[in-house]
């Protein structure tokens, strides 16, 4: 199959859906002529024009309000927040308006927008441009949160997100933009709320999100050489979550390591751990549930410090090995 980068897969999804559905448009800072801060929307303004690829002033609240309003009037907008960190400025529209409207109008109004948010560290962009804030939005009823880890999932999930009638926070991984993988040319969706077993194994389950999926797979490859068979589960959609697949996997292996980049305290891993502990998988646990997550500190600018702030492959290998060998 043809290979695309994660970035190209997202662009192709936008392009195909805009051709298919005239209600879809893109709005954000520098998404037009400049092609987006990371180049995701490059070339789109030439095809679709400035009416459908809209550059905005530097106002995240404006973007969030515009897509909320447009969605309410029947459009299917895709907003872009240049760095997920800046959703702080948009949060009134997202949390108090977009997430609530469908419920407060008894289901008669829908807010079918997607807000794309490049997130994560590893680019030397320092504390205000490196955060993983997905769990803030997971906590808000009414929002869906999607976090693709491969080019294939990125395209399929974005198409599903645009077609979904609810506001979707689409968390893109900056570090993954250049990674390549097979992506079908045709239109396809990856349903929201469906997790994926990225690698099957019997000794240990790693539930990883976003960029950590790739690191977990690399760790699994190393551990396989030691005879430790790791199963890597990617939730893909944080909300709604496919808890069943995770519970099945943990029930099978009896050991689980949860890995995410976001800060540990109050992170998504706590929710996953609770779901596992509350489920029938509890009776199959042969070791404590272990979380591996970002340190509880702002991402440093210094590249060495930055590297050590979030889980790396070697950290995952070590944690998984200890868990698999019954040393935890």
């Amino acid at each position, binding site marked *: 199959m043809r290979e695309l980068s994660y970035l190209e897969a997202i662009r192709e999804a936008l392009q195909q859906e805009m051709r298919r559905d005239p209600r879809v448009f893109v709005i954000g800072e520098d998404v037009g002529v400049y092609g987006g801060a990371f180049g995701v929307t490059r070339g789109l303004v030439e095809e679709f024009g400035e009416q459908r690829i809209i550059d905005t002033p530097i106002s995240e609240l404006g973007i969030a309000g515009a897509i909320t309003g447009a969605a309410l009037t029947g459009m299917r907008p895709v907003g872009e927040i240049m760095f997920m960190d800046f959703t702080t400025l948009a949060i009134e529209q997202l949390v108090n308006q977009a997430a609530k409207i469908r419920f407060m109008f008894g289901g008669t109004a829908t807010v079918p927008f997607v807000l794309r948010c490049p997130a994560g560290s590893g680019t030397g962009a320092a504390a205000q441009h490196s955060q993983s804030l997905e769990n803030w939005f997971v906590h808000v009823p009414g929002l869906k949160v999607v976090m693709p880890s491969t080019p294939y999932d990125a395209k399929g999930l974005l198409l599903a997100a645009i077609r979904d009638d609810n506001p979707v926070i689409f968390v893109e991984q900056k570090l993954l933009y250049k990674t390549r993988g097979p992506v079908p040319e045709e239109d396809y969706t990856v349903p929201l709320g469906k997790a994926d077993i990225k690698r099957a194994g019997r000794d240990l389950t790693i539930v990883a999100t976003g960029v950590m999926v790739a690191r977990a797979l690399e760790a699994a490859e190393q551990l396989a050489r030691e005879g430790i068979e790791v199963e890597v589960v990617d939730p893909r959609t944080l909300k709604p979550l496919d808890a069943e697949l995770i519970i099945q996997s943990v029930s099978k292996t*009896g050991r689980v390591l949860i890995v995410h980049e976001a800060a540990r305290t109050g992170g998504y891993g706590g929710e996953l751990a609770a779901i596992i502990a509350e489920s029938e998988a*509890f*009776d*199959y*646990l*042969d*070791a404590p549930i272990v979380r591996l997550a970002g340190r509880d500190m702002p991402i440093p600018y210094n590249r060495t410090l930055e590297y050590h702030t979030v889980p790396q492959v070697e950290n995952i290998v070590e944690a998984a090995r200890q868990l698999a060998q*019954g*040393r*935890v």
Partner: protein
Amino acid sequence: MAVPVILPKMEMSQENATITEWLTVEGETVRKGQPLLMVETDKVSVEIESPADGILAGIRFGAQETVPVTTVIAQILAPGEELGAVEDPDGQAVSLKTQEFALPADDRVVTPVARRMATELGVDLNAVSGSGPGGRVVKADVEAAASATGPRGLRASPAARRLARAGGIDLAAVPGSGPRGRVQAADVQALLAQSTAESPADELIPFAGMRATIARRMTESYQRAPHIHLRATADVSAVEATRRRLSELGDEKITFTVMLVKVCAWALCHHPRVNATVTDAGMQLCADVNVGVAVSLPEGLIVPVIRQADQRSLSDLARALNDLTVRARAGTLTPADVADGSFTLTNLGMFGVESFDPILNPPQAAILGVGAPVRTATEVGDQVVFRPRVQLTLGADHRALDGAIAAQFLADLVAALEQPELMLL
């Protein structure tokens, strides 16, 4: 008001009964009609049911204790109620043991799962304080009580606990290989593998209840009564034809065993010395012909008695035998149903046994063992034909019966089986 649980008198001559087993425990909530305990007499084992709804309290006798009939053996109390005053059958007031358990309060409820776990884990529910709504004892309370009495600081992973539960393994006995000595799934699995690798231990089933009675009576009979066994075979084609014809004519299905009862009863009328019981003092000729029929139950053999079998029609015998067999299997025979037999019939034909030597059912003087019909070449006139033949083995107590007398009785049995119309004479 406290309702007494009284050891009932099950037959006129009965003085005592032995408690074999309590089916519920003191402090347990019981319903009217719920079986509380098993008692046995020499002859039968009977369930004693609760006379009321309430809480079982004041149990005065344990298993294996022999108690005079009409004794108050326990009481059923309403919640919060005190034990009532008790008199023994001889009118003596009984000083009751002080209550060793706290009666549940009015609103005390135990969830079904907590009750089940308490039974499984051997936790005394009365010692558990309830943390649920309205003081309800919930699962966690039982678990807490169980772990409090278990070894302190036992660490085990949930998976290890699950495997131990499923495998019936005591976690405290499993060495833990995990961090801080935590018992891991692999530790339990190792122990399970080890225990299944060992050959299972021989199981001792103590003689109890009915089994103990059988053991005692058969030993006594075999050791004290000098047995003689006489064998004869009978062509049963005629009796079989009669049986079939009568089954079609009447409402009752006449079985071969019913025919045998009839034949025995008829022959016993003609041989009163065989219809007798034997003691050291002498032999007692029985006025009634009461034929016992051995019925096999999972827990042992029982011999319900058809009284005055010689006076009954075949359909009456069929009804009586059917009734006794059904009640024997249901465990609802009364002592009277198994008392006063003067002769016993035991048939193993349905198992394909051709002949066997039965042990006398004391104090009876004789017993007949009947085997399976076997098609046998038989001389009829000048021809050899195949006829179903049954082997009859008469066991007799030689103290009372000599071989010749037993032989005459056996010959009449054969004659009546081969020519059933003889019984009409």
